């Protein structure tokens, strides 16, 4: 049988419509050999957690440029836990001030990528962190 591939859900929680970064990253992860699902805009944390569980992904990448990350990202982490899916790696990206990054990490977001981060950094982080 073929070897298992890393499965990633890229999601846009909240009302933010900036999806350039999310889509570029989705393509870069796919080009790096991963299976990628992109949710599209305006997903509630509930929808994201449900999709992540149903699709049995290894990683959820959350993108938010509206400033609502402190409200939305930890909520996804909590809901995954409630679904018994706390083995899923949760990553964040967007215009996120440095002082918020530590808050997000304390609340279960594994890593946060901010403007200027390369897609290769994300690819390498995912490969390092997911053990198939």
């Amino acid at each position, binding site marked *: 049988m073929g070897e298992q591939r890393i499965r990633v859900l890229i999601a846009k929680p909240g*009302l933010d419509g900036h999806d350039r970064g999310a889509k570029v990253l989705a393509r870069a992860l796919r080009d790096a050999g991963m299976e990628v699902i992109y949710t599209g805009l305006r997903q509630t944390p509930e929808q994201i957690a449900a999709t992540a569980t149903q699709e049995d992904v290894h990683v959820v990448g959350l993108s938010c440029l509206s400033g609502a990350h402190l409200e939305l990202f930890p909520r996804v982490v909590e809901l995954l836990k409630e679904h018994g899916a706390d083995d899923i790696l949760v990553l964040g990206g967007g215009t996120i001030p440095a002082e918020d990054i530590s808050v997000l990490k304390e609340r279960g977001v594994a890593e946060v990528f901010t403007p200027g981060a390369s897609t290769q950094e994300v690819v390498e982080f995912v490969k390092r962190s997911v053990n198939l």
Partner: protein
Amino acid sequence: MFDRDALLSLEQQKDAWERGPVAKTLEQFGERSEQFRTTSELPVERLYTPLELAEADYQRDQGLPGEYPFTRGIQPTMYRGRLWTMRQYAGFGNAEESNRRYKYLLEQGQTGLSVAFDLPTQIGYDSDHSLSRGEVGKVGVAIDSLADMELLFDGIPLDQVSTSMTINAPAAILLAMYAALARKQGVALDKLRGTIQNDILKEYVARGTYIFPPQPSMRLVSDTFAFCAEQLPNWNSISISGYHMREAGCNAVQEVAFTLANAIAYVQAALEAGLDVDTFAPRLSFFFDAHNDLLEEVSKFRAARKLWARIMKERFGAVKARSQMLRFHTQTAGSALTAQQPDNNVVRVTLQALAAVLGGTQSLHTNSREEALALPTEDSVRLALRTQQVIAHESGVGNTVDPLAGSYYVEALTREIEDRVTAYIEKIDELGGTARAIEQGYIQREIQESAYTHQKEVESCERVVVGLNKYRIAEEPPTNLLRLDPEVERREREKLEQLRGRRDNAHVTTTLEGVRKAAAGRENLVPRIQEAVEAYATLGEICDVLRGEFGVHQASVVF
């Protein structure tokens, strides 16, 4: 434009120059690159001469400022008469806080207002809606009802300013609120100057604040065109925007092409709704991005003006000169800013702003240095405004009209962009127009392809971004970024509760029923919306009624 014999002789001279000094220099030193390209991948030659313009015809291609095809500008005297409007996009938190920022900007010499709304307002939810959680007051000001608009413009007489409102799906509602406020201030509607963005088509491909499906959305657009033509003769009923598609990743050629294709769709919709082209076309306005590739951007603006004039005259038979003029606002490129070494962004913004001015913009927003990280502080916004003021008063570029005209390179590039945009518009026409092209995901794919290519070029260092992939330094994350008051959301919820307690709720219900009936039928919706707004119905309540009649847009995911 040039004498045939002179061109022939120049051709021989250039040929000898290439075989002689150029070949020798290349042999010794080479060039920095095998091929040079603009940011939008247009090829750039070593040298431009009259040979590249051999087919050009001055009167046909450029003309005089204020005259068809308006390549050189829409007014005869341009900035010698009046400088462009300096209009910084601003708004955050609640109406009171944004009102303070507007007054500050006006005190600092800003000449027009530009309102940023928060996402719940843009998507038609009140501040107390569950989907608004975490988003209230974040990317703009939260406006739930006319009561908030009263606070937002407190102490600002509406006949003294021009106001641009970045609002799309619920544009008719915010326009109705502004008109209602004018009445309260005792200002006649024909004295109101400003713009609603009202450009729903680009929301489906780039900006994402759509609510309703395309068809009823286009009806709302046509309704506002008709309303403005009748009641607000000095108001721009739409700002057809390339900015957000460019920010989403497309290049300069695509930006102009997709914007004009959308513009064609709005004109067609209005004509189908029975409006006469010369009644609404004079109030169509545009909004473009200004990037770093200075001369490409200048050429882009010139080409866009020329193309639009031709489209309006030849395709739609517009007769009034004002119907053929492409008037536009420019914002410098947010996507070109870096979070690394943010002070470098001041230099980028200067170049971009210069491009907009050399390209003949009517108004301009300059971004602040830390906008890759957060909303700007007052100090940073002042610096961004000062950048415009230095260009206006110290650089001298506004003292003559269209100063780069006649540059062999700029004229050749203007024509190149024009040709490529024309090819794109033909392609979109073949697909059945922009609405069909969006439905098929064509526009989205074009934008994404360009965005991905750009990212790969940056990561491979093929494209240098100073401070990001070259000339990096170790730096601490910046401090003193603007922090929003976390209490805003709670206070807005309380304000709404109080409003719902003190207004005449029976009257609200009646006016909302009026909106519902108008939406189900064919009458112009704006007057009904106005009645609801004046009864202090909230934006969310009005949008809920419209959602009930129109349904909501289900985006297809293209990536």
